[in-house]
């Protein structure tokens, strides 16, 4: 036998200045066309009642739907100074209504107030000020940690350093290889097509060599590392913040800057230039592949022209940029991780913010360094 479809019943009766509200049937969330509290409110607004009396007119089943109805009715009666008599309701319903109305100590805290636009502007300005202060403090603490490292007084586990070196160096080789090879190929294609019009495709080696060594090798490696390692650092440190691991270090008297930030900083300062060097070689190889296979240059011609076009100075410019990028990526990743609030959402935000800030910083720094090197004639 199938269960009949649930139906809810509501009957209103007026008697001697009182409104009798009789409830029956199934007051469940899945009951179709449940009566709404609006029907009772309408009756209460039509004439003045001193009291509303709730009656159990055969309530078969009930759940939160009934509670919600009664809670809304109770709120209306409270606002309009009408007495509500719940004594006729099932005991479980009365107890839950009582529980919902009970004031516990925490309820006195109040709801968060949403600020006006002027206050929001002020709050954002103050927040920006705080963030700048935190950034400067972070840079200062990092510099002090590096000083302590130079003096041999920094405390961190050498094993951790090897681990992060491995993670951000050799583990990144496959992706750096792929991107650098394709970058070399693209540079060669774009350049050679233009140079071919003047019969000067031999100079594709100059274009690929200079472009890769001075700019693209360091830049592409840095962007890869920002997405791969910077985000990972922010997420790692953010999760450690959530799990109170950073607090645990502090209470043991260990500096999170030395214990966590310093190894990561060293790893990126060392590894980004090394990876850039590797990316430069692969980029030249990629350019050579395109030049030899598509633009009729011989391997010897390409190699000889590359050697003529490039100097150690060009390599140095790229590597200096790479070291600066390494510092920027590590700073962005570690700063966002250390600043992370204690929630899963905040960890995600920290990782995103680390990548965005690192890439912006890389591009800005690259522009400044390029201008500087040009002025210096390097």
């Amino acid at each position: 036998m199938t269960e009949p479809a649930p139906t809810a019943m509501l009957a209103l009766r007026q008697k001697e200045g009182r409104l009798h509200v009789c409830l029956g049937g199934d007051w469940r969330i899945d009951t179709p066309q449940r009566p709404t509290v609006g029907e009772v409110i309408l009756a209460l607004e039509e004439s003045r009642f001193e009291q509303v009396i709730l009656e159990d007119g055969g309530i078969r089943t009930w759940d939160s739907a009934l509670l919600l109805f009664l809670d809304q009715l109770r709120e209306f009666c409270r606002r309009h100074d009408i007495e509500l008599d719940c004594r006729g309701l099932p005991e479980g319903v009365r107890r839950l209504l009582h529980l919902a109305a009970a004031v516990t100590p925490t309820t006195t805290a109040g709801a968060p107030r949403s600020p006006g636009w002027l206050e929001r502007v002020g709050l954002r300005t103050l927040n920006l000020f705080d963030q700048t202060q935190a950034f400067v403090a972070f840079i200062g603490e990092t510099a002090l940690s590096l000083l302590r490292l130079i003096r041999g007084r920094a405390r961190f586990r050498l094993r951790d350093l090897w681990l992060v070196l491995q993670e951000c160096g050799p583990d990144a080789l496959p992706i750096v290889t792929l991107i650098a090879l394709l970058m070399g190929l693209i540079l060669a294609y774009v350049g050679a097509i233009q140079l071919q019009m003047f019969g000067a495709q031999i100079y594709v080696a100059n274009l690929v060599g200079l472009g890769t060594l001075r700019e693209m090798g360091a830049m592409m490696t840095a962007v890869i590392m920002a997405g791969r390692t910077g985000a990972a650092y922010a997420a790692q440190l953010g999760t450690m913040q959530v799990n109170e691991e950073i607090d645990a270090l502090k209470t043991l008297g260990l500096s999170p800057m030395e214990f966590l930030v310093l190894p990561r900083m060293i790893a990126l300062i060392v590894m980004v230039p090394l990876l850039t060097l590797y990316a430069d070689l692969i980029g030249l190889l990629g350019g050579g592949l395109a030049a030899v296979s598509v633009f009729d240059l011989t391997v010897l011609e390409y190699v000889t022209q590359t050697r003529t076009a490039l100097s150690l100075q060009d390599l140095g410019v790229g590597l200096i940029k790479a070291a600066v990028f390494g510092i920027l990526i590590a700073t962005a990743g570690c700063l966002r991780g250390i600043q992370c609030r204690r929630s899963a959402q905040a960890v995600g935000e920290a990782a995103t913010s680390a990548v965005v800030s690192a890439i912006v910083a890389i591009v800005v720094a690259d522009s400044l360094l390029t201008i500087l090197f040009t002025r210096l004639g390097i």
Partner: protein
Amino acid sequence: MTEPHIVVHDLTMAYGDRVIQRDLNFTIDRGDIFIIMGGSGCGKSTLLRHLIGLIRPVKGRILYDGVDFWSADPSTRAALLRRIGVLYQSGALWSSMTLAENVGLPLGEYTDLDDAEIMALASLKLALVGLKGFENYYPYEISGGMQKRAGLARAIALDPEILFFDEPSAGLDPVSAKRLDDLIVELRDSLGATVVIVTHELPSILAIGTNSVFLDAERKTMIAQGPPRELLHHADPKVREFLTRGGTL
């Protein structure tokens, strides 16, 4: 005699080759406050995860009102899961949502209520656990005890028939723990729900438990079952020691 609400039959739990508990047999009656207890690392939380369908047993059956959870088809399993509510140890609130959104999410997914009704109901559920006025707070803006109560509000959002609690009193001060115990009893009485609690908090076990099972890490099986107060005089000294804090109570 009424049929048991939950039946655990010949259950063996393992992670890979490592058996956690074996040959578990017990029943939970409707309206029980059933305590799963035992020393640290005995597999209490693992048993809870088996009961709420997060881990498939290596062997044995778990029946809800006579329906074998793991033999049932996915739609029956989903329907069974909608009849249970779980309060996780840390509250497990979704950090990107406000408390009202946390409580409102299951209502939005599984009922036909409109947005206004969902928010009103979420507010009511929060009021039931003493968090009226905190609807627009994010989990990280409130204390651990409040997070736990908000987790409870979410657990009762769909008026579940069975409520599971994983270490509800852990991390709470004695007054808050007692208040939560009272709330659990009140909700059980008002909603008519069955309550299953994993805990090793003796005051809670003895104050509110109506039935229990004691798991032993060494023997890797249950060594006692019954109302906690009766187990105070159990023949096995391990059970007695646990319930009397090594004979100090």
